[in-house]
């Protein structure tokens, strides 16, 4: 079931070198190097407290490491305001679902396109001219995403009434609406039943394949990780202890120790 998408595989989207991040005395990441290649699915795994979420936040730019550099498309990335992350082409989902609960699934996904829309308040209120065309055009894109994620039947339902698995799917849809180059998924399958997990796996693979989106995900479910990732990086106590294809990582002694608590 692993896909073979070799295009652009070796050009780097992000290059993280020697990153150190600490909160007070707590060292969350120690001298971590990580490359993200264009078009791949990269999984970051590790036991609880290994620094996975910290790593994801360094990638997204929410955390600024005390030491080390982050290169985005070959350029050293400076400090960015949280709302500008999306403009760089990085979208994400959250471990605890962060949806706009008062809105329908459709409006949630449409909101994901906010930064792509031009603004003219008066025309928008009257639904006239360019604003009308713009709205129609964006709605078309949103409907494509809705079709893609197979959530046509719940488009108008307020998301707070949806079951967990579907909420996760809407959240993925909202991230996709940004048309990101890099998609960060923070435990996309956490708390799902087997069927929901299978659906989500399929969507992650399809996104990667059809849109060519580079995906970085954090996941606990080892089965899932090994199945869908091109590459796996393993963190333990803030240190990267392994990085390679799922098969390479699986046989690494350090990884086995970390997961079984030995060593």
């Amino acid at each position, binding site marked *: 079931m692993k896909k073979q998408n070799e295009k652009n595989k070796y050009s780097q989207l992000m290059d993280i070198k020697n990153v150190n991040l600490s909160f007070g005395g707590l060292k969350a990441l120690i001298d971590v190097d990580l490359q993200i290649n264009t078009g791949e699915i990269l999984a970051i795994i590790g036991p609880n407290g290994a620094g996975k979420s910290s790593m994801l936040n360094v990638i997204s730019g929410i955390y600024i490491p005390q030491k080390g550099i982050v290169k985005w498309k070959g350029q050293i990335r400076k400090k960015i*305001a*949280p*709302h*500008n*992350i*999306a*403009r760089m082409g990085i*979208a*994400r989902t*959250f471990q605890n679902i*962060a*949806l*706009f*609960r*008062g*809105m329908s699934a459709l*409006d949630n996904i*449409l*909101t*994901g396109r*906010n*930064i792509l*829309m031009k*603004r003219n*308040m008066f025309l*928008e*209120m*009257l*639904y006239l001219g360019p604003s009308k065309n713009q709205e129609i055009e964006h709605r078309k894109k949103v409907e494509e995403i809705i079709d893609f994620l197979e959530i046509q039947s719940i488009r108008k339902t307020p998301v*707070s*009434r949806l079951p967990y698995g579907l909420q996760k799917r809407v959240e993925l849809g*909202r*991230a996709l*609406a*940004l048309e990101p180059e890099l998609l960060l998924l923070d435990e996309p399958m956490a708390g799902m039943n087997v069927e929901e997990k299978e659906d989500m796996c399929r969507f992650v693979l399809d996104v990667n394949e059809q849109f060519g989106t580079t995906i970085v995900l954090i996941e606990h479910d080892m089965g899932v990780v090994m199945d869908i990732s091109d590459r796996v990086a393993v963190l333990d106590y803030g240190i990267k202890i392994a990085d390679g294809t799922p098969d390479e990582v699986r046989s690494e002694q350090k990884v086995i120790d970390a997961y079984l608590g030995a060593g």
Partner: protein
Amino acid sequence: MDFWFFIEVFVGGLLSGVMYSLVALGFVLIFKASGIFNFAQGAMVLFAALTFVRLLEMGLPVLLVLAITMGVMVLLAIAIEKVVLRPLVNQDLIILFMATIGLNYFIEGMAQLVWDSNVHVLDLGIDEYVAFEIGDAFINKFDVWAALIAGGLVLILSLFFRYTVIGRALRAVADDHQAALSVGIPLRTIWIYVWTTAGLVALVAGIVWGSKLGVQFAISAVALKAIPVLIIGGFTSVPGAIIGGLIVGCGEKLAEVYLGGFVGGAIENWFPYMLALIVLMIRPEGLFGEKIIERV
């Protein structure tokens, strides 16, 4: 019971209810967009009205005064974001609510320090005592104007929230800060928009109330009447603020006239709170508020 008299009381109640709606709207805007109950809304009404009337007294043309006052409200919004909201990002809503209580006293004090605490007459050129006659009922012309202004404002705000990119961003911010940031919505700019809008609504309310009661400190207390309006209409609904206002206005006038006699009068002052209490017991989210669904 005289039918036309009933109509007169009823319509009079509706029209005075619209005045409450105007104030309630300001609350709804900020609550809808940030989940904060803005205790300072009444003070903003006072500040806007005072600024308006004092500039007018200096002999400046009305439109210029209006423009300047709008500018002042924008500056106030920016200042509130910088000084009050920004340092409190990610705090509990109750803390932000407490901050608005402080803000309330600050703005009240500032308004009277910068201007003064006298009563000012604000004449919009609409004679308060001219009335239409419908059948045998007299309808106050000023109230009709107020109703038209409020209606227009509601229409604009509803369209704004529902159909504009910024309106959608506002709703997004209200629902989830983190998620809003992740799709590229700048929180700070949005907050400035919200408080500016609330400030402009406060200005409209201030002008209308000021020309009815005179611009004076008591205007800021009008905000208290907005609370039952909000509870009845729902804190998150723009149309709800209007319907709530109508129910409160109508209810209190009818109650005063038809029930007041039995309990010694002056029930106008507490009747709206009674209504609010009843609504709270039957429908806690208000008539038009977003339904609160709790997963068990």
